[in-house]
């Protein structure tokens, strides 16, 4: 027996203007706030991306699309996107697998579940400063914790300057990001799991279904919307990684750990090319939007039984 999603019945078609209006009332407060506080800054970015401006002076030069053309040729920008994509891929797979495993275990009323729930959300709560300090210490070359342990168990050959070695810098940073991030996925997945009616599990067990069977036929289909949610949030959060990079590698060595946000900030403050930075933001957002919409579409496809 497999669970069915609440049948995707067509939503009620608005019968009248009044019907439309009362439905619209629900979104009114949100839209009102959005129009007040987000509209101007948000569309301002588009306007600014067509300028050559340093962010301070009264001199602004209208350059149409040349910023966008320049981005197309900007090798370092695309390199940074690649770096962020790599970390995101790791996060989508490893981080979310970890979060799911933990959420699943806690959901099954394992002993001490309450305690574990509280502990797993500690990394996201911790300040970026503390996280930076600790992981810098762990990864430090000469006196770091990790190398200390490796040497203690005889694996000297593996010891290195984790954050400075071009082969390991990005992955080491990804590990920190995943460690800090799995707590988010964990609570969302847990919320999703806890919303599945227990009767479904009970009746399946009574019918003699095995754990794996239950997981694939009951849990997963019901969790698909939540999986999409977590995936999209992971992509958003990881592609926009910034504070962690600054706290650990500063984008180095060379350009090995540069990410889109560090490039945007570098252009905004360092090069004083505010307009160019804005256009980078727009391009970045467009890519993220496309990725997210793709994800949602693909998942909707696989939802149809």
């Amino acid at each position, binding site marked *: 027996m497999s669970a069915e999603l609440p049948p995707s019945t067509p939503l009620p078609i608005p019968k009248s203007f009044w019907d439309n209006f009362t439905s619209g009332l629900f979104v009114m407060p949100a839209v009102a706030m959005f129009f007040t506080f987000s509209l101007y800054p948000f569309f301002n970015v588009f306007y600014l991306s067509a300028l050559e401006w340093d*962010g301070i002076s009264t001199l602004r*030069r209208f350059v149409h699309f040349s910023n966008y053309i320049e981005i197309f040729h900007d090798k370092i920008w695309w390199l940074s996107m690649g770096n962020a994509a790599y970390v995101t891929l790791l996060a989508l797979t490893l981080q979310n697998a970890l979060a799911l495993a933990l959420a699943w275990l806690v959901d099954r009323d394992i002993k001490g579940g309450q305690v574990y729930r509280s502990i797993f959300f500690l990394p996201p709560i911790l300040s970026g400063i503390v996280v930076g300090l600790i992981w*810098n210490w762990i990864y430090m070359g*000469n*006196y770091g914790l990790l190398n200390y342990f490796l040497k203690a168990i005889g694996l000297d050959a593996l010891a290195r300057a984790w954050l400075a070695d071009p082969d390991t810098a990005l992955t080491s940073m990804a590990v920190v990001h995943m460690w800090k991030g799995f707590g988010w996925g964990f609570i969302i997945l847990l919320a999703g799991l806890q919303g599945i009616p227990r009767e479904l599990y009970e009746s399946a067990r009574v019918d003699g279904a095995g754990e794996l069977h239950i997981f694939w036929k009951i849990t997963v289909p019901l969790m698909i919307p939540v999986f999409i949610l977590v995936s999209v949030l992971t992509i958003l959060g990881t592609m926009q990684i910034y504070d962690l990079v600054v706290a650990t590698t*500063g984008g180095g*060595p060379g350009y090995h750990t540069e990410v889109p946000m560090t490039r945007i900030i570098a252009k905004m*403050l*360092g*090069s004083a090319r505010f307009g160019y930075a804005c256009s980078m933001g727009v391009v970045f957002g467009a890519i993220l939007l496309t990725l997210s919409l793709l994800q949602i579409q693909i998942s909707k496809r696989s939802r149809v039984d």
Partner: protein
Amino acid sequence: MKKGLAGILLASLVFTGTSCNKSDAGDAKGPVTIWHWMSDREDAFKELADRYKAQTGKEVRFELYAPSEAYMQKVRASGQTTTLPDIFGVLGESRDIASFIEAGHILNVQPEMDKDGGVWRKRFYPEALEGNEFKAGNRFNIPPGIYGVPIDVTTIQFIYNKGIFRRAGIDPNKPPETWDEFIVDGKKIAKLGIPGFVSGWGDLWLIECLADNLAFNIMGQDKVIATYRGTVPYTDPDWVKVFSLFDELGKSKILAEGVVTMINKSAEQLFSNERAGMAFNGSWAVNVYSGMNPSLDYGVFPTPRVTDKHPRVVWGGPGSSLMVNAKSPRAQEAVLFLKWLTDGPQQKYLVTSTKNLPSIEGVSQDIPAVLAKFADGMKISVHPSRLPITETSPVIERFDKAIQSIIIGEKTPQEAAEDVESAKKEELAKAANPQ
């Protein structure tokens, strides 16, 4: 549910009523407001504000906004809405300061400085003032003048641990003079099992400082400036020589591991805890080291000489400078306060309480020996803000990152030179066709 919303709105209204929207502009009688970012000087500033009030009856209010990146965002935002305070700072390059001046936010204090035969002006280290000055014919087309008042200076030099020197068999009173001596000393220290040299080269600008020092020594100021102008390529043998010095440094195995992504704070940590023999850091380090290890026995020496053809230089210039808001109704009051702040007794107080270098000459005899040594570097200092032209940001970034690549063995000096030169060509092309 609706009650809850009403409750929140009501609460908000109450709070709006109780906190009035103070607007400083227009009220010429209010206190002089100063926005600063120097957390470690907050207490000293408060003390000075009290002293000023006691002496003159006028009120001065210091407001702290840290860290520096957040501070600059606040200043920029205020700049766009003309809500800047009476005194503030601009953390950035000359170009950023020029933008603020051009927008009319900063007062030219040169007239005040030149008053009475230049009484105020003559107090300062000339280099400190130069860094805040825009000369006639400057490339930003700013009317010539002095736009910032330095309240301290900074130099960045080499620092060495005397105890470790002794253990390595080096005379602690004879720090290395030449580059070769430096490498040799570093190796001796490395034999003890301690890294010979550490620096926070995850912070790109620190690489910049050292590279510039070496470049000035190898080829002289004129050639460096010619390179910035684009008439000398980065593939010139002298520049390749600069890059090869870093190559030598990387291969010598005297560097602490992970230097290329180490943040300066980590480097400072290592040096204070005697886990490195030498460091490259600025005069602010005195304050940092004294907090982490007051008994640290260390000395200072300028960047080692590579050749004798050109003078040895050190990176140094105005540390923190404050600007007066040209549009403020209290501009004159603000100027008077800054004049007082940069006078002998106040500078002496700042030095002793916060261990920074004074911006005025004549107080050196009252400061600790180590600080004095840092201050001496001012005489042979260079600073981008005092050069007629500086390199553009993208090229500097490529330059610094190329050096990082050299140190980890990813690029050869020649490859690095070519890489930086290609970035330079791109920038020159962009400047030639602004559309």
